[in-house]
């Protein structure tokens, strides 16, 4: 292995491990990272090849809140740990995959065939508890033109270096209409964070109604890459509620107190 190749491989690993803690990582030669486009829409006309070998449009796949996972199946770096992280949260989250939300994994390497994806899926499902449910985790490949459209529309900036890719590591949460809701960086995710994100993406329309309350009580800390209890918001709501209740009680009821008290 040449000296340059060793250095580049090291960069790949370092970026894979560290990119989740940064908004974007800039190298002198390359721009790699998530260029956050929250509130914008993914290109829904991207063509994908599914596990059956059929060509489908992305808009046919995203019909509910969706976790979009961009990897390449032969990645020697962080893609496998990332997909392992997905399998863990699918097992942990109390939402039903395929019913409440979708997880789709798309290879951004146009040279890869769907067979690689099918094998990956099988290997992860074999380790999971929710084996039946996990079958709804969908794997895709695509061609270079559609991959470019897709990655550009979600701000997934990556570079090919020899036969490897330098790329950001994380997940993109999408609403059912393709709106980009949030970037979840890293390789491991708390089921709770996924749940709140999906509830947020569905505008509270999935799962029990308590979830809506959770979405209000928790806010996403982009630096810590997780949802945190929003103590100020909750306190403000509680204070306002109590004060409003007292005001309404005093203003609307007509009881007079003229009691004689013991001194």
């Amino acid at each position, binding site marked *: 292995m040449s000296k340059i190749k060793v250095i580049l491989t090291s960069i790949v690993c370092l970026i894979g491990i560290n990119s989740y803690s940064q908004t974007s990582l800039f190298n002198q030669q390359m721009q790699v990272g998530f260029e956050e486009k929250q509130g914008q829409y993914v290109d829904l006309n991207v063509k994908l090849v599914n596990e059956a070998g059929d060509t489908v449009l992305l808009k046919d796949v995203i019909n509910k809140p969706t976790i979009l996972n961009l990897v390449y199946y032969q990645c020697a770096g962080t893609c496998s740990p990332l997909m392992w992280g997905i399998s863990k949260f699918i097992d942990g989250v109390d939402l039903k995959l395929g019913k409440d939300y979708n997880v789709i994994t798309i290879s951004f390497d146009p040279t890869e065939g769907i067979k690689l994806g099918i094998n990956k899926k099988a290997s992860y499902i074999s380790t999971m508890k929710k084996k039946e449910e996990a079958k709804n985790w969908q794997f895709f490949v695509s061609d270079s033109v559609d991959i470019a459209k897709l990655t550009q529309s979600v701000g997934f900036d990556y570079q090919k270096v020899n036969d490897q890719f330098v790329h950001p590591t994380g997940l993109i949460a999408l609403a059912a209409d393709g709106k980009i809701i949030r970037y979840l960086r890293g390789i491991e995710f708390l089921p709770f964070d996924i749940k709140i994100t999906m509830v947020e993406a569905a505008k509270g329309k999935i799962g029990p109604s308590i979830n809506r309350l959770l979405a209000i009580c928790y806010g996403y800390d982009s630096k810590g890459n997780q949802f945190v209890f929003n*103590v*100020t918001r909750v306190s403000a709501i509680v204070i*306002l509620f109590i004060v409003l209740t007292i005001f309404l009680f*005093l203003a609307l009821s007509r009881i007079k*107190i*003229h009691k004689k*008290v013991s001194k």
Partner: protein
Amino acid sequence: MIYQKDTAEPSYLDYKGKYKGIFSWIFSTDHKRIALLYMFSILTFFAIGATLGLLMKFELIAPGRTIMSAQAYNAFFTLHGIIMIFAVVIPGLPAVFGNFLLPIMIGAKDVAFPRINLLSWYLYVTGVSLVVISQFTGQGPPDTGWTFYAPYSFRTAGNMLPAVFGAFVLGFSSILTGLNFLVTIHRMRAPGMTWLKMPLFPWTLYATGWVQLLATPIIGITLLMIVAERTLHIGFFDPTLGGDPLLYQHLFWTYSHPAVYIMILPAMGAISEIITTYSHKAIFGYKFMIASVLAIAFVGYFIWGHHMFTSGMSGTALYTFSLLTFIVAVPSAIKVFNWIATMHQGSIDLQTPFYWAMAFLFVFMIGGFSGLILGSLAANVHLHNTHFVVAHFHFIVFGGTGFAFFGAMHYWYPKITGRMYDTRWANIGLVLFFIGFITLYGPMFYLGFKGMPRRYYDYDEVFHAGNIVSTMGSWVLYSGLVIIVINLFASLKSKIKAPSDPWGGKTLEWTIPSPPPVENFEEIPTVTKGPYNYS
């Protein structure tokens, strides 16, 4: 006006209840006795706070160390601030005069929750005790200033937790008092006393009650978050734990700016009562006075950001907070205009409380105008954290609340004690107090404008002259204060008994004997006319 008959019922001072001696006070649920408990507590803490201030000013008489070290100076201004803000000016007028007079002025026998009223005082004493204990325990007294700014408040070796917890307990006391007053005003007004027949002092207590109820929990939660951060290392405000120091400033000032209105609104109410009584004329623009009280309380919630102009906020936030700061000056100005219009063509009786009210108007306007200078973004960058801010703050808080407090004290003294005070000594005390006040705080505007920063025990020689004048002013002010307090205490032995209505006041408290009987009214009065009926 219908005066209540002199009844056989003893006054609240002579009443023999279940307990005797000191216990007849600290176990009493009579709002009047609780008011006096507050008064003596607050005067005690005020004496401590004023002495600390006097010593700080002495330290500043010359550059370098004079009588204390830098660390001692830091501890002094911290304790001075905490005591004066949390233990004196915030509870001052509501807890003392509100407790004593609110039920009487609305024709009630007591507040709605007498036992909670007593609990408030217990909490007050506990909270202040914790703050004082923090000075003598742990690794040294707190040195953060009364604002407890993060992240320093988490890193200082000073004994922060008892001080912060003490302020938290004081917050509870304030909330309970506010709640009690709100329920009392809503539920216990005498028959016929509609909202628009209620005197202005209860109106200001009403607005203050809502501010206490809505704003004080914010500081309570914030202080708990400090405790959690220091003890459990949960990152709220400390950047090293992932917290945000700016969040602390926002939360702190979201409470502490409305707290200025907890201090000043009842002061405005007392001044309204004094001016109308000694002008022998109905208050000018009664409804506008009420509207301006409510407007100040409401807008006061949205201007906290002007304390943070140099802390780092977006341009939009800066402009908005600056604009709102100017807007809140409008209802304050309405009140000043209306007070002056009330005096116009009035039959003015020049008594000590009236002089206090005039002094209040003078210093309050200086405080208000200097507040507008600080509310201007460009000027603020230069003046932030200088003595100009200290001067403005004291003109508003000490000048506003303090002058109104002493004015109210002299106004209602005959009603509370049943005795008349020595007017000559009262006036001498006032003159010294006023001259001392202007001499003490006036130079601070100049010093701040020239760039002298606040909270330093040392300064450059260029600031020396201004500091000498200021320190000498503190001696004059303190002398005036001593004369005022001695005169009021000495007058308790006065042979001149106060009549029911020594000043010709028209509100309900002047219809009952001085001092008031235990139950205030033999019969609950029926109100048929407005509060300032001089026709």
